[in-house]
Every structure is written in C-alpha cells, then in structure tokens.
C-alpha cells in the first residue's frame, strides 16, 4: 500500500510536470540477473496469476509442489484472458503485482520493457527448452520469462476426404497443398479444399511462415522492416491464389471452419493444438479415425509459427526466490508431462516429448515434430500493431483484390510508419 501511494504520487507528478523529463534511451547492455539462493528451501506464500484454463488447473499441480515443500503456499488466482492484459497493466502501474504470472508470448516485448520483470536467474537451465520458445521472452538481450508451454500450427486434414480424392499422404509442399485442395473439391466431395483466414482472424499466422519457409523474414538483421521483398510477394500471391482459385471460402464467421471440418464440407486447415480435443468432442465417436495432423507443407523448409505462454516473476515480488524455485519445478520434464496430462498444454521442454503419452499419440506427436522447425514472431514492442496491419492488408488482398506487389508495398510503408518501438 505504501508502494501504491508512491505510485499514485508518481503519476500525479507526471501529470503536473508538463515540461517532462525526457525518456532515457534503452540501455544496450543486458540486465544482470540476481541469483537465487539454492541452499535453503522455498518458503512463504507465492501469489500466482494464470489465465483461463491454466488458472483453473494449476492449483491441482501446485498441491504436489506444496506437498514436497511444506514451507510454501501457492496461491493461484485465475484471470479471464480477455481482461488479463488490462489487469497486468494496472498492477504494474500501481505496483500491486503478484509474485509470479503467466504471460502470453506476444505480450513479452511490451511488459519486458516496463522494467517490472525480474531477469531469469541461472537457477533455470535454459538449454532444455525449444530454442524458438526462448525468442519471445528475450527482450533487449535479456531473458525475462521462462517458456511454460508452447503451441504451434500444423496441418489438420480429413483423411477420408483426401483418400477419396486419391491422395494417400499429407501434402508436403505448396504445390501439393494446392493440388490436394483442388482434388478434395473435385473428387473428394468437399465444398472447400482449404481454410485460410480471409484477413481478420490470424492472417499473420499463415503469411509469416510462408516467408520464413523461403528463407526470408519481415525484419532484417539491422532491425528494419523487409516486407517489400520477392519472398513476401510470393507468399502473398500464394495466399491470394487460394481465394482466386475458389479453394478457400471468403465469407466466414468465427466457428465456421471448425464446423465445416467436422461436417465434411472442409478438407484441410492450419490451426493449433487446442483444436484436437475440440474436434474429438464435436465429431463424436469415430471422428478420430477421419482426421489426421501433419507438419505444415513448405517450400525450402517447413517452418511453422510458435507461440504459447511464459512464466514471469515481478521485481516487486516480496517472495522472489520461492517464485523462481516454483518456476524451476514447473519446467522440470516430468512435471511438464504431468501438466500435459492435466491441461493438454504442449511441453516447452524438449525432453518431455520422449514420454509415451506424447510420443505415441498420433494426434500430438506431429506437433513435437513441427516444433523442431518453428519460429517465433519478431520480439518487437509493436508486433500487435504489425499483426493488425497484416490482417488489414491481407483483407484488401483477398476481399479487395489488391495485387500482391501493391500489398507488399503497403505493408512496408505501414510497418515503417509503425516502427519497431525500440
């Protein structure tokens, strides 16, 4: 509360000092992490915020940690996803943060730069994670979060429809994907061969991997945007070709793709791990045999997008050491497998994928395969704006019929106007 008062006075001062003090430019050197004392057991209360389903299930797992560490109490507060960002922002401003919180990977650059997060101490062995999962929590060369779980996009396809269309194997290349979509419509009896977001609803998730698969990127090594490249234009024309070729539906509403996939009007789509259980539930008994998952079709590589959630500890935490010890426990391979059993979150720790529960499940193992060739979105503070820009311009490309070349130019101009926020 004293801290809160100070924060209040701080903002008041900010309000009154119109002449401003000027932003101190970001420090180039990585922030030094404080060590965690490992010779003493974790004690006290650790307050944790976790979103959605994770917030509901985490207390079950935490009980095991409490049993093994009698001095510690883990207090989990579940927060709805839709309000979590505002709640975190308010808590940082008023300095009323918990000890530990879950955080979406796309929020890391933003909250990492507030100075509210504690750098990851050497207690955590970072070599055990998928390397791509460490990209988002690394902000200005400092690691501020530990990957808790990952998600990646793979190809979901209706085996029965592709079978009927004479396609025995999941498509591996762009050309094969187009051909499969066409065959599914012509011979497989599907109304739509493929689903792709027509702009809104995740354009960046499909467009960026298509650039990466050609060896390109949207951010050069010097930190400037590179939307106006041959790779980008090629990705955009490939995107557009599904709609001009009538292989993907243009007018859709949220939920349509899932429903169509289950009722057989849609043959293929690229989506994330949470859809496996959704399809099994919606499709009912027997549906498990009708669909399969495979790594995404590619060009030079078959790179996909990786996201997920990180765990962060706050600098204002009164129980920092215990919080980090709990994080360390959560990233233990055996605990990660247990967590997969509880919440179906994909482990961020590579060793966990050797467990039979993951390795032997044909709906899950392809995700592990895909994670070896996956890339995170660029760790820039303005990425959410870039994402929106990509959605808006893709909509113009698909619905508005703008050419791929002009779209690439518009993306480049828009991105330069937005900047990287550095």
């Amino acid at each position, binding site marked *: 509360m004293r801290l809160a008062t100070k924060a209040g006075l*701080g*903002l*008041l*001062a*900010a*309000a*009154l*000092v*119109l*002449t*401003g*003090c*000027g*932003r*101190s430019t970001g420090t180039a050197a990585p922030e030094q992490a404080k060590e965690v004392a490992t010779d003493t057991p974790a004690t006290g209360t650790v307050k944790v915020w976790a979103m959605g389903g994770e917030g509901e299930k985490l207390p079950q797992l935490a009980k095991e940690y409490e049993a093994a560490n009698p001095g510690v109490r883990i207090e989990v507060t579940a927060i709805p996803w839709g309000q979590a*960002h505002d709640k975190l*922002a308010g808590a*940082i*401003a008023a*300095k009323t943060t918990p000890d530990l919180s879950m955080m979406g990977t796309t929020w890391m650059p*933003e909250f990492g*730069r*507030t*100075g*509210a997060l504690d750098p990851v101490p050497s207690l955590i062995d970072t070599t055990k994670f998928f390397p791509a999962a460490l990209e988002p929590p690394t902000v200005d060369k400092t690691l501020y979060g530990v990957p808790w779980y990952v998600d990646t996009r793979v190809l979901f396809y209706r085996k029965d429809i592709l079978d009927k269309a004479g396609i025995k194997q999941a498509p591996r290349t762009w050309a094969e994907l187009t051909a499969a979509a066409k065959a599914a419509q012509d011979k497989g009896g599907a109304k739509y061969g493929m689903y792709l977001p*027509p*702009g*809104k609803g995740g354009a960046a998730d499909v467009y960026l991997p298509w650039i990466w698969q050609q060896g390109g990127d949207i951010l050069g090594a010097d930190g400037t945007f590179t939307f106006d490249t041959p790779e980008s234009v090629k990705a955009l024309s490939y995107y557009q070709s599904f709609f001009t070729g009538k292989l993907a539906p*243009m*007018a*859709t*509403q*949220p*939920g*349509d793709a899932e429903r169509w996939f289950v009722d057989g009007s849609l043959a293929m789509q690229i989506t994330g791990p949470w859809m496996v259980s959704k399809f099994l539930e919606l499709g009912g008994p027997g549906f498990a045999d009708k669909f399969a998952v495979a790594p995404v079709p590619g060009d030079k590589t078959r790179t996909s997008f990786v996201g997920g959630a990180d765990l962060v500890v706050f600098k204002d935490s009164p129980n920092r050491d215990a919080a980090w010890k709990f994080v360390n426990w959560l990233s233990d391979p055996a605990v990660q497998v247990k967590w997969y059993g509880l919440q179906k979150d994909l482990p961020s720790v590579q060793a966990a994928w050797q467990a039979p529960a993951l390795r032997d499940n044909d709906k899950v193992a392809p995700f592990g395969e895909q994670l070896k060739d996956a890339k995170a979105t660029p760790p820039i*503070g*303005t990425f*959410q*704006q870039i994402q*929106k820009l990509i959605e*808006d311009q893709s*909509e*113009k490309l698909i*619905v*508005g019929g703008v050419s791929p070349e002009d779209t690439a130019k518009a993306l480049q101009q828009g991105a330069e106007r937005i900047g990287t*926020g550095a």
Partner: protein
Amino acid sequence: MATATLPESARRAAGARARSSDRTRRAVAGWVFALPFVLLYAAFELFPLIVSVVMSFTDMRSTDLRDPLNINTVGLDNFARILGDAKFWQATWNTLVFVAFSVPFTLAIGLALGIALNSGVRRLRAVFRIGFYLPVISSGVAVAVIWRYLLSTDAGLINSALRLAGIDGPAWLNDTRTALPSLIAMAVWRHVGFAMVIFLAALQGIPRELYEAAEIDGAGRRQAFRHVTLPLLRPAVLFIVVISVIGNLQFFEEPFIMTQGGPLDTTTSISYQIYTTFGFGQYGYAAAMSWVLFVIIACLTLLQFRLMREK
C-alpha cells in the same frame, strides 16, 4: 402582530431578509444534495481526468507504466497526427452514419412501444414490457452468437428465408455494403427496450388529473396528447435523445463482438479505434483520440440542449 405596527419600509426590509435567508438556505441545501457526487468525483475522477489530459500531450506508452515520469512531451503532435490519420476519419464517418440511423429508429420505436404499453394495452402488459427489455439485459456474447446465426451467409436464418423467396442473400457481415447496416439493425434491436422503459416511466409520471382537466376543457385524445403529454414529456425526451446520442457516439460493442471493424474498416468506430490504439500500448495517442471524441460529443450535446430550448 408586531409587524403590523412597523413602518412599511421596515416591513419590506424584513421580508427581503427573510427571502434572502430563504435563498441561502436553499443554496446550502443544494450543496448538501450535491456533496456525495462532488466528493466521489474529487476522489476518483479528477485525478484520472488530469492524467488523461496530460497524457494526450505526451508520447506515453504502456512500457512507461512503471516509470511514468520517464516520458517526453510532444506538444500537439498527437492531435496533428489525428488530422492525418485516414483510419480515424473513416471511423468518424462510420460513427456518424451509425448515429444518424440508429438513434432515430431506436427513439421512434421506443416511443411507440412506450405509448402503446402505457395506455391501450392492458392485457399481457408485463409480458410485453419484459420481453422488449430482454435484448438489453442479454450478454454481449449471447447476442453475438445469435446474430451470427441470423446473418450467416450460406445457412443463416435470414438468408435461408430469402432463399425460399428465391433471393440470394448477401454475405451480411462480410460485405462492405451490408456490414454497417447489419450492425445498425442489431443496435436498434438491442436498445429499443431501454428507450421504451424510459418513455414508459416518463408517461407514468404524468398526473392523470391533468388529463381529467383537459377532458373538462373539452380536449380530444389527440389534443390532450399534444398539449398535455408532449410538453410534460419534453425533459424525458431530451434525456433519452442526449443519452442515446452520447451512447451511440461511443459505440463499440457491436463491431467488437461482430466484425472487428471489418470488412475493410467499414464498421470501425472511433471508440473501437481508441480501444485498439490503447491495446497497442500507445497511451498518449489513445488519450488524444479520446479527447477529440469528447469534443465531438460535447458539441453535439450542447446543440441538442439548444435545440430543445432548455434555459
């Protein structure tokens, strides 16, 4: 009786004193009545308002949350940027179109319902009242689910009905020509109940003796409506018009739950624009946009007070 013996001038002075002490007493009472609001305003509103004004002249971003002194003032840059922000002006146009259609429809239907329920309709009155109010109290999520079903392109209820009539219905929410009108229809559907309830309360507040007096004076139904109902309804009408315009100028939920501002920005509103800018962490720019919206709303509201000729 003492006053009777006083000279006229002294009596008048005493009367003036009494009147002025009366006036003081009323002023004190006014402030006592205003006190709770003013105190709460001073405690919870004043500071955030000052902050948001100041913020609009700075480049504050969400990354400055923990260290809010560490920002630059940028003068009028944010406001200059709004002038050149094509998206903001598109949003402003959409917002004005939305208000121009949804407010009159909501008010007209709401008033008709209020009058019908207040007088002619006796049976089932409670059912009608709550029925027309249901959309107001339904949660946004349920409303979104239902309207998506109604407006879905290939199997939606409306297009299925149109198909029976041999018409190929449009892709309501995905077509640049029909998206905003769809949201307007939805907004009218949602808010008619609110207008009805307010009009109903106002109609019920009119003492029936006034109608009896009008009847004695030989006024017919129509005349009574014009000369008794309408004038007494005027403050309530002003209230509902002002509230509707203010609320609709801030319209947000419809695009938020239905279209995310699409297709091609045809349903983006100013509030939605502020919301996304704020979500991007550009607090300074979002604050500036908020104040521009405030000025637009304030001007239109003042205009309404003028037009309704309130003192």
